[in-house]
């Protein structure tokens, strides 16, 4: 399987099964577009193909010969027969990451919030320290031989329960030493409660921090409002500046926003944030039921695609910021086994509610049918896990035929479930956006390679 496209002045071919990426001349690209397999000498049907009549016979022959060389080296029309599909379904599944919902309460009332403005539809509450400690014990006990364990402090707004965040970090570090586990911490915050002391603590202890801001003041304040209905931009911006200005550059952070059908010109939000000096940026398309007034629809796609392409064009000549979705590691990314399996929700990764209930991931919190156990009594229902373990890009029919499968790993099961009612039926709108972003990301890699060589 191959994927070919023209973007940013380049003719690009991706060999899906090997992961090879090539930049082609016009002649080679057009020859490739007119063949479905390569064997022997360049066939008469190619040499005399009317779609190729702007090229000389010599050019077509040369291009075909080079394509044949790629094929011979396993970098074009390659098979996936090197993959043992059975390895995609793990026979043991140690838990290695927990999303701790330390606060099912929030001090903002963002209209598009997937968590029902913080309480996940189940009442506003905070996680007691005892439950958080039990969650640390739970993940250590279930992590088997995995050494690296991730803890993500999430909400609602986790800083509303900051004392529990701190005591949990301290407890996990102590238990990590005892059990030879390396804990990595992340916090996702809307920034309202940040002060210099809390920011300093985050910078010292959190390996990653996700800061929520949608971009321009008027865009951010359209959805991200306080309980009193006021915009949050002016409150949080200086706090985010302090945190990021004082963060060690070796540690990750992301300024993360959401775009909706209200700002199809979201490049202006990306550039606004970059102009403020933030370098790690992410702007995500809102995921919402089609009947929500801010939901993205099929009709929005042409404008969004054009926006992504324009952003990629701008980023050819800028290195002062990174756009998360255009960051792709072509050479040292995850192994193919990981790419086949995806996120590991429900077996490698789980979320814990303030009551200690264990769910396959944060998106399922509040859905009783997905409760897998409770950290306080060490219970774990494998029948829920099994729904997730068996899923991969080979079991999702639509993923199997998609060129992007090894880059996105089948997308988000929760989005599939929430939109289509089935974990295995991909969320089509999300897929189309993902594919466009990947095309842009890979074009930027091609551009940087060509520029440097």
């Amino acid at each position, binding site marked *: 399987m191959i994927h070919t496209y023209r973007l940013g002045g380049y003719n690009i071919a991706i*060999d899906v*099964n*090997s*992961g*090879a990426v*090539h*930049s*082609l001349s016009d*002649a*080679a690209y057009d020859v490739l577009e007119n063949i479905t397999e390569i064997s022997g000498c360049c066939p008469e049907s190619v040499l005399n193909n009317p779609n190729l009549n702007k090229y000389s016979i010599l050019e077509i022959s*040369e*291009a075909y010969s*080079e394509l044949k060389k*790629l094929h011979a*080296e*396993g970098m074009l029309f390659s098979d996936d027969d*090197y993959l*043992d599909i059975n*390895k995609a379904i793990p026979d043991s599944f140690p838990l*290695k990451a927990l999303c701790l919902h330390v606060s099912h309460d929030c001090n903002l009332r963002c209209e598009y919030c997937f968590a029902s403005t913080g309480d996940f539809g189940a009442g506003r509450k905070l996680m007691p320290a005892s439950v958080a400690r039990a969650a640390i014990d739970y993940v250590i006990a279930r992590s088997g031989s*995995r050494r*690296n364990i*991730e803890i993500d402090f999430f909400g609602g707004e986790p800083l509303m329960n900051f004392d529990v965040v701190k005591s949990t970090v301290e407890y996990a570090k102590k238990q990590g030493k005892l059990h030879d586990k390396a804990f990595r911490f992340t916090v*996702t915050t809307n920034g309202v409660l940040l002060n210099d002391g809390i920011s300093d603590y985050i910078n010292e202890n959190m390996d990653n921090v*996700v800061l929520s801001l949608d971009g321009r003041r008027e865009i951010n304040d359209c959805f991200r409002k306080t309980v009193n209905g006021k915009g949050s931009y002016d409150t949080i911006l200086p706090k985010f500046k302090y945190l990021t200005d004082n963060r060690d550059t070796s540690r990750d952070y992301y300024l*993360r926003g959401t775009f909706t059908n209200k700002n199809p010109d979201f490049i202006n939000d990306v550039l606004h944030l970059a102009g403020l000096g933030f370098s790690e940026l992410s702007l*995500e*398309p809102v*995921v919402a039921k089609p009947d929500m007034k801010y939901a993205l629809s099929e009709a929005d796609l042409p404008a969004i695609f054009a926006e992504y392409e324009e952003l990629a064009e701008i980023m050819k000549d800028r290195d002062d910021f990174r756009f*998360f*979705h255009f*960051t792709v*590691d*072509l*050479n*040292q*990314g*995850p*192994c*193919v*086994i*990981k790419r086949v399996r*995806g*996120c*590991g929700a429900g077996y*490698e990764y789980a979320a814990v509610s303030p009551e200690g209930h264990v769910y396959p991931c*944060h*998106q399922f919190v509040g859905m009783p049918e997905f409760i897998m156990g409770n950290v306080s009594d060490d219970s774990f229902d494998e029948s829920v896990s099994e729904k997730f373990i068996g899923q991969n890009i080979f079991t999702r029919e639509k993923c199997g035929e998609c060129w992007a499968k*090894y*880059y*996105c*790993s089948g*997308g*988000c099961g929760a*989005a599939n479930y929430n939109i289509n009612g089935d974990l295995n039926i991909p969320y089509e709108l*999300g897929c189309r956006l993902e594919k466009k972003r*990947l095309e842009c*990301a890979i074009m930027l890699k091609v551009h940087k*390679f060509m520029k440097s*060589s």
Partner: protein
Amino acid sequence: MLKMKHIITICDGVLKKSAAKGGCGECQTSCQSACKTSCTVANQQCEHNKN
């Protein structure tokens, strides 16, 4: 890396190579839901290739 008259290879067959030793599971969890900023597994690094 192949560099020919009509074709320049930017990246060779990394996936096939990774199949031999892959699957250790030590890498970062790759949440793909939009609310946590991580829709792309491929933007992560293999734990063994870091540094």
